[in-house]
């Protein structure tokens, strides 16, 4: 057992290893679409389900879902949460401004994607409200091109 004044030694890891991810052909197309302010989903060749973000297969039918579908910039807020904590931090720390997180189902898609909700305040959020994409000022062809979704009209 430890004595009261005994010191505990904690060692630090000493390796840094970066890792790249090959996103795949379907996500590559999706990334390219973002740079042109377009949402590109995929459609299951059997059940017709439309995925956004896209996947190259339907897990249920287990067939290819490689038909690309252009989707609009509007959708429905299916679910949301507002967090007061940073998503990733070596120490969990509070944020200065609350982060609004939404699950948005873009019109014509059958799945919802996790996106920031912007240009409103947490009290205005409600499930089922209409939202529209806000693109980042500088487009780079990656998921951060989606600055967020904002309420449309009175929601």
């Amino acid at each position, binding site marked *: 057992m430890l004595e009261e004044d005994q010191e505990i030694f*904690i060692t630090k890891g000493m390796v840094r290893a970066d890792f790249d991810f090959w996103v795949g052909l379907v996500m590559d197309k999706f990334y390219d679409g973002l740079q042109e302010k377009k949402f590109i989903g995929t459609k299951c060749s059997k059940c017709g389900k439309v995925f956004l973000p896209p996947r190259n297969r339907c897990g249920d039918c287990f067939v290819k879902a490689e038909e690309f579908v252009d989707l609009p910039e509007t959708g429905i807020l299916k679910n949301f949460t507002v967090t007061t904590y940073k*998503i990733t931090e070596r120490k*969990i720390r509070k944020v200065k401004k609350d982060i609004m*997180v939404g699950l948005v189902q873009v019109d014509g898609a059958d799945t919802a*994607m*996790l996106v920031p909700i912007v240009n409103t305040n947490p009290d205005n959020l409600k499930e089922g409200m209409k939202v529209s994409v806000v693109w980042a000022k500088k487009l780079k062809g990656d*998921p*951060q091109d989606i600055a967020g979704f904002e309420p449309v009209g009175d929601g």
Partner: protein
Amino acid sequence: MDKVGIVGYYQVKPGLDIMMSPYEMIFEAVRGALDYADLKRKDLTTVISATNDYYDGKTISNCFKVEAGGAYMKDESKVEMDGAHAAMYGLFRILSGNHKLAMIYGISTPSCYQYESVRVLENDPTFDRPINLLNSYTSGGMQMRAYMKAFGISEEDIAKVAVYNLKNAAKNPLALPEAKKADITIDEVLKSDILSTPLRELMYPMKCDGATAMILAPERQALKITDNPVWIIGVGNVNETYYLGDRDLSVSLSMEMAAGKAYEMAGIKDPKSEIDVAEVFGHTACEDLIIAEAAGLTDKGKGISMVDRGNLNPSGGTMAGYTPCANGLTRIVEAAKQLRNEAEGHQINGAKMAIATGQVGFCAQNNVIYVLERGGN
């Protein structure tokens, strides 16, 4: 399925910072389980662990645990999931007919890493990781909102579950000391810090260092070891999609299907009346209800009734201390203790049939359930 017996177990008392190395904890758990069952290390034929390379900060995280886990020069493997999944792997080893005694353990030491940050590394690296919005707080918040909306549940109802769990923890000698809250009130829970709306700090389990070990044996072998083993008579496991945006978060379809399989195997027709006690692994007080409902213990949206009856998580569940990689295994051990009348301070009288669950992934993506029956007298 042939009966498989739970013949021994041991839980290292959890702590926010236990000040033991993982290897010291594993040795205490494994040695403790062997001693409890009056067995020797040489009796073990296989050792299966649940650990996580990211949580351990090293790859092939089991390679350095061989001696501590009792696996020196033995058949050994691990699962990078929950302890309840390691138990399933051990169960299959036993059912193969090739093994007479399986040691299962799960361990993690979140005092050494930022659990919430590390969980972000579970995310889809092509979208959710770069967009950086998904962690245990935000997924728990959205799941709670979905459940409340689907069934007309209030924040007070979820706070009531948290109070129930924390009060149960106060009666559990192996609960995290900081989680033992005999005098907690609904009001205190509702006034605790918001993690991610509507999820609050006191509805969310404290992460702590801990290790749990359990020993499985085939029926004949089990009866040589003890007069009152706990029998595993049913098991089910189903994995659903990773994508939260594909799923109805107010329910757990994968647990519902897994429970269906396990009950069929166990010959359980009506879980509501036949299951005396349940130990379920939820990531939040709300998820405890979703899992209990999916396991058929109550109708959907009525999980709160189990709190009134008092047969859900008598140990306090994960709210009594959330030990990554060991949670599901601890639930099985707690259920087994109930069936052996060993649950000191939190015993449900006359419990004969129990379920225990484990899971892995955001909003309980992958669920496993065990049906356990009291053996012997």
